[in-house]
């Protein structure tokens, strides 16, 4: 049955993947464009330019043999990192590049390639001593099915978990880490507001029945507005182009890095009961910048903490919090090589989490779309500040969809405790969501640096639409990838 599609679909190898009887849901002609990959070159971590030693350089490259110089990549690049005039073979200036991968998914000629770690992950899956943990980002679950001939937006959660377990992974849903992020980043936001707007030096918040005390003195160096720090391309953009904004960035790691550090400490010691040094964490991300983020040299806090607390020997060689990152496309490639079908069965409406790290909230899963981090933070901050649940969990006014910049004011009725502290009945939370940094970010950032910004919290996603349109996602035929096949003759720069 699948064979009717196989002509159009370059990927589904009919005889390899078992037929599950729900082929009717596959859409004829729905095939994604192949993105070429390459292995890590030996000198990729040598540093230099705007890269520190150990950081992966050149995660994305343009294949000069296939580039026709059409300038599509130049138009979508948020950091002007692409050199080359119209009609001339283009080249990425790595020192300016933020690894977002927008050029890659928009290239109509499939000329842009990505560094891939599929082989490395496969070898670790075969190693019986290793506990290989899959950290699955929210946006992967709405796009993975596209690689197997299904339309965009097809949910694969239960089915993907099953396929990952069959491949030998333990699950640490990145959505659980997104919930951790909201707790940390939301508390940080409330602390900044308490210090800067209400002039408090100390704050007491009731969390799960116990009082938590916060000393606010060190927020002197953390001004408002607070910017989100979940997007690694945005972080590198700030470090390269707006270093003066750094105090405004939330100090929270991205969910992927929180997941890696938690998996190797709490996960290894209290949940799975395995040796922490044998835990191998794999980020499965819709993103190419995450590959870079995992290689940042300071991201080895689990190793440091485990050593300081005597859980691993003093002489253990340094290991990162996240060992490898696969993009959504890479995960599909891994499943294809293992002959596993992650879109088998049709039981997505009912959730029965089996392990700790499979539990996630609705706020966490919308991290993958523009405005999602903001909405999740508002849902929790509302409950903390108001002392009750909001009438509706949908804060539609902050959703980015396809708008470039969204501004909103959320009135939060304060609980009696906060009323006493602040002397106000209602707090107007002013928020801004930047959906795609190209053309949209500069005014917002310059206002914040100059101290003119009216906002308290600003979410920034590098890719238009959010992570669902990230540089690691399947290249969809509704994009520009259909242009190359319809040309009668090959184009060449």
């Amino acid at each position, binding site marked *: 049955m699948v064979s009717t599609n196989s002509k159009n679909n370059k990927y589904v190898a009919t005889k390899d993947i078992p037929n599950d009887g729900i082929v009717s849901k596959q859409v004829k002609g729905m095939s994604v464009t192949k993105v070429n990959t390459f292995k890590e070159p030996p000198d990729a971590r040598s540093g230099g330019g705007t890269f520190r030693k150990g950081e992966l350089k050149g995660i994305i490259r343009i294949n000069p043999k296939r580039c026709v110089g059409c300038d*599509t990549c130049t138009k979508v690049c948020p950091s002007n990192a692409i050199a080359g005039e119209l009609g001339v073979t283009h080249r990425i200036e790595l020192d300016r590049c933020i690894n977002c991968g927008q050029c890659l998914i928009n290239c*109509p000629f499939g000329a842009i390639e990505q560094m891939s770690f599929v082989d490395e992950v496969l070898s670790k899956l075969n190693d019986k001593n290793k506990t290989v943990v899959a950290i699955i980002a929210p*946006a992967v679950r*709405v796009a993975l099915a596209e690689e197997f001939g299904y339309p*965009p*937006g*097809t*949910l694969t*959660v239960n089915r993907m978990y099953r396929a990952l377990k069959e491949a030998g992974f333990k699950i640490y849903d990145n959505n*659980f880490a997104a*919930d*951790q992020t*909201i707790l*940390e980043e*939301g508390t940080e936001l409330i602390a900044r507001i308490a210090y800067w707007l209400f002039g408090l030096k100390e704050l007491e918040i009731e*969390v*799960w029945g*116990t009082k*938590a005390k916060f000393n606010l003195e060190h927020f002197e160096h953390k001004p408002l507005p607070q910017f989100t720090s979940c997007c690694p391309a945005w972080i*590198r953009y*700030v*470090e*390269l*182009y*707006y270093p*003066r904004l750094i105090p405004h960035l939330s*100090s*929270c*790691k991205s969910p992927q890095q929180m997941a890696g*550090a*938690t998996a190797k*400490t*709490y996960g290894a010691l209290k949940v799975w009961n395995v040796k922490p040094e044998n835990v191998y964490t794999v980020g499965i991300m819709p993103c190419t910048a995450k590959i870079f983020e995992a290689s940042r040299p300071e991201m080895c806090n689990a190793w440091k*903490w485990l050593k300081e607390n005597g859980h691993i020997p003093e002489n253990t060689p340094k290991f990162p919090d996240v060992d490898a990152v696969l993009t959504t496309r890479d995960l599909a490639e891994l499943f294809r090589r293992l002959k596993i079908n992650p879109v088998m069965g049709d039981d*997505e*409406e*009912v959730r029965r989490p089996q392990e700790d*790290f499979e539990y*996630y*909230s609705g*706020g*966490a*899963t*919308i991290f*993958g*779309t*523009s405005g999602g981090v903001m909405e999740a933070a508002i*849902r*929790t901050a509302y*409950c*903390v500040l108001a002392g009750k649940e909001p009438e509706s*969990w949908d804060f539609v006014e902050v959703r980015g*969809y396809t708008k470039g910049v969204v501004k909103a004011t959320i009135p939060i009725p304060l609980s009696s405790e906060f009323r006493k502290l602040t002397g106000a009945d209602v707090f107007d939370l002013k928020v801004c969501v930047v959906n795609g940094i190209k053309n949209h970010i500069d005014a917002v950032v310059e206002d914040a640096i100059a101290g003119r910004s009216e906002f308290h919290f600003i979410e920034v996603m590098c890719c*238009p*639409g959010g992570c*669902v*349109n990230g540089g690691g996602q399947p290249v*969809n035929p*509704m994009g*520009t990838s259909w242009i190359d096949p319809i040309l009668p003759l090959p184009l060449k720069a």
Partner: protein
Amino acid sequence: MSEKKMYVEKPASVIISRRTFLKIVGIGIAALAIGTYKLTDIIAQRNKYIKIRQAGQYKDDQIVRNQIAPASHLNRMIPKFYREFGEQPLSEITEELLHTHYEPRIKTFPLEV
């Protein structure tokens, strides 16, 4: 009085007159230009699949909201994590493991966008 000038078609243009030729070329160029313009429009607005994926994300929100939790602090594994390990948000241990710092990439002056 000067002689009135007259324009006479040369014999070579009997099949397609000069004017007809110009008309054909003109219409052709106009069609090509509008077509290319439309094409760049289509390329610039190709966000249909983004919207569908976003809808998938909000659908997951609806499913999870009723069956597990609508907001992060209501996820019951989160208090478990803090009770057994993290103590509380912004505690010493979560500051060490879940927080980080950032450095300017270029010490002298930032790159111009």
